[in-house]
């Protein structure tokens, strides 16, 4: 594998507008229930001051994808650029990947009885376009990046946020810029 693509999510910029979540659904006209990408609001108590802080998460295209490891039909493949692609034509709906992924990103589509997930819009990337979610992010909080040491050595780049499973499990290809809190003048 020559490189590993992934997401850089800037929680400082993310306002939880959920545009990415719906842009993903719009691009693929995903059914109501599955949420390939989802915006999560962090727990208030994880911060010194109450706040509305968010991160947006789709498939993390892990360096050690558990979905790929456990899948009995090889529905998952990892491309040279690190994208973990799920092929619904191979999927038999055994749901093992949904048990194995700590991020709950492969999700069963109960109508199709198959699993589906974010494929990082590889066809758009191959066309030189941004993934639909990144293209839709208005505050510029979501970026497509190459996950490498240079990125990890940058100050402020985090491997995880409070409330997320340990990255040791699957080595997810996502990095964060942590939420920053301003000063608050409160009445409680």
């Amino acid at each position, binding site marked *: 594998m020559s490189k590993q693509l992934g997401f850089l999510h800037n929680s400082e*910029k993310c*306002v939880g*507008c959920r545009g990415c979540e*719906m842009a993903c659904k719009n691009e693929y006209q995903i059914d109501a229930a599955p949420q390939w990408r989802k915006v999560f609001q962090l727990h208030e108590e994880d911060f010194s001051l*109450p*706040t*509305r802080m968010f991160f947006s998460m789709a498939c993390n295209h892990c360096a050690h994808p558990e979905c790929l490891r456990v899948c009995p039909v090889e529905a998952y493949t990892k491309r040279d650029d690190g994208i973990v692609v799920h092929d619904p034509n191979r999927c038999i709906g055994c749901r093992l990947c949904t048990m194995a992924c700590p991020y709950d990103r492969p999700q069963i589509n109960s109508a199709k009885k198959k699993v589906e997930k974010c494929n990082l819009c590889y066809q758009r990337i191959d066309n030189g376009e941004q993934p639909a979610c990144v293209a839709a*992010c208005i505050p510029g909080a979501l970026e497509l990046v190459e996950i490498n040491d240079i990125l990890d050595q940058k100050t402020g780049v985090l491997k995880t946020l409070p409330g997320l499973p340990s990255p040791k499990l699957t080595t997810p290809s996502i990095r964060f810029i942590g939420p920053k809190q301003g000063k608050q003048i409160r009445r*409680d």
Partner: protein
Amino acid sequence: MKLSRRKFLGGAVAAASSITLFNFNLLTGSPSASASAADQPSEAIKTFRNVCPRNCYDTCGMITYVQDGILKKVEGDPKHGYTNGKLCLKGYAYPRRVYSPDRIKYPMKQTPRGSGNWTRISWDEAMDTIAKKILDLKQRYGSTLPICLDKYSGNFGIVHYGIEGTMSSIGYTTRAVGTPCWPAGIDAQTYDFGTLYSNDPEDMVNAKYLILWGQNAAWTAIHSFPFINKARERGAKLVVIDPILTSTASKADLYIQVNPSTDGALALGMARYIIDNNWVDWEYARANSIGFDEWVDYIKKEVTLDWASEKTGVPKDIIMEIAREYATAKPASMWVGYGMQRHTNGGQNVRIIDALGVMTGNVGKSGGGVNYGHLETWGFNYNAMVNAAPKGSKGFIGPDGKEGDRAINMNNFAHDVSAQSDPPVKMLWLACRNPGAQDPDTNAIEKMFASMEFVVTVDSFFNKTVEMSDIVLPATTHFEDWDVMASYWHYWIGINERAIDPLYESKSDVEIAIELSKKLNALEPGSCTFPTSGTPEEWLAKEFNPGIHQMLGIEDYKELMDGPRKANMPAASWSDGKFRTPSKKIEIHCELAEKNGLPALPIWVDEMKTPEKYPLRFMTPHPQHALHSQFQNLDWMMTANPEPKVEIHPVLAAKYGITEGNMVKVYNDLGSITVKAHLTRTTSLNVIVSYESWYKNSNFNVNYTLKAIPSDMGKQATGNDGLAFHDNFVMIEKA
């Protein structure tokens, strides 16, 4: 399984002959079927330009992808310089709106109203029934005044003003006048500057200091964030003043949880400190305004920092800090949100904030401004709206002696409709409006609707208002219409093409007017002046005029099909110093206000007192997944946000024994709602918050508890005072 077509099809002739043998009702010979087309079942994808017509700051440019006549997906229009090729979560959900099986498909009649007994009727029958009712009322009462129109913001497309035109063309009618959303602030700016006119929001990047005052852009104006962020990257500080720690406030450098309705006191405290330190831009203020020194004297005499601090709950040092920063960071920009003026002193508070902007010389400056909204780009012909009343129409004699429509207050609709007696209101026409969900005092609305003889609603979904109607007419979505949309925030104008054919039997408001006109004139020639011809695109074309052409730098509306255009206006409003007040200056001392029974000066007016019985303020701001009663009913939204909640501070909740997820009854004299509790410290101890919305298959409606208390301003520019939505007081208990 795949059949070779040529084997059994001798071409069109064979098919035609077979058609003669079988009596088709729903199928017909297909003209397009040819051997070559047969190998290409799908057309290439076509794209169309649309503009989101919702009541929203952002009015996004959209690109719609259509294949085989079916809308496949939507994207932002990259040629739109403010929305920049991106949509919000609601915008991306549009395909679900168009193709939801829940859509209203045909004209339908309910007998009796509210029974749920609906029959499908033809357009002809619908128009016949409506026309006969109109003529009947006209005959019985000698005018069309018993017919009342309530239209507002469901679709802000210019051609949709054909709804008003429909009414004008049948005679003088009763009109719900006003705007529920923002009139107090509009009047405040009208008194001060002559009208509301904000800087180009893209100009926010030039601000060195940015105060968002009662404005939750993250939910209601998300496209402003790149500009705010750009300003911050250039070193600007972002201050958010809001009773609720919103998503926007969570991003601020400084968040101030002000006591609700005391924003004016905070601004006055700031003004006092600015005067004390002589950071006043005396030159600008004195050259451009009248009454400034009078106001300074008032402050020196009446306002102290201690008072302001006590009133607002904001520590003195913080008032001093923001006063210093706002006054000395030049330029500094303020964005006054619509939330903060929904109080009984809301307009007055905006006037104080306006004066603060004037005092610091931030008005008329790029990177500055006291920005509220504008209507500078709305100079269309309103061709569909302007129809003379039929000859001999009898109207309502207004206080000025002129005969015309009878205006009633949109913001106290239930009461005002019922209060009319000469003649009484007997029929309602509702379009782009859902008073059943959005008006105050839902119980009163229900009663008023029940007292009507006839109610017609034009809508796309079965909401509370449709539920209370006699006839519902299916409305097209904006993808099925031709239209043009301007924004009340940014300076862009875009054309809205018909991307797909109208689904089922839906019609646009102008098409409905045409049908009605045909019918009325057939029944009683000359009874309706609405033109009976013109394609939807022709109707659109008639909205343009040289002024709009010049503003957009185009010669023909068709040029807009290449992309939206930005009005050719300076980045800073009022930069020419030509204010539109009677005095042509900023009127810090405003005689018009005084004439209207308001203080002439932007002085403090006390907020509404909390009633003893109902100690909790119930704020019901705009939701994230919906725009009023639009969007939240769609499947994607119901998955992402399945149920309403009420946000309660944990300490307050503990007092009432409420824990996370408990059902809570929120009530006052007017009514009650029961809703799930979410405990959060984003609100304060005496404020509970629930976001207004219409959820599918739910009767949740915050307005059951909301009294129609007017805000202090609105009459001057919008015809009626606004609504003090956020001065709603309740009690809670565990349900």
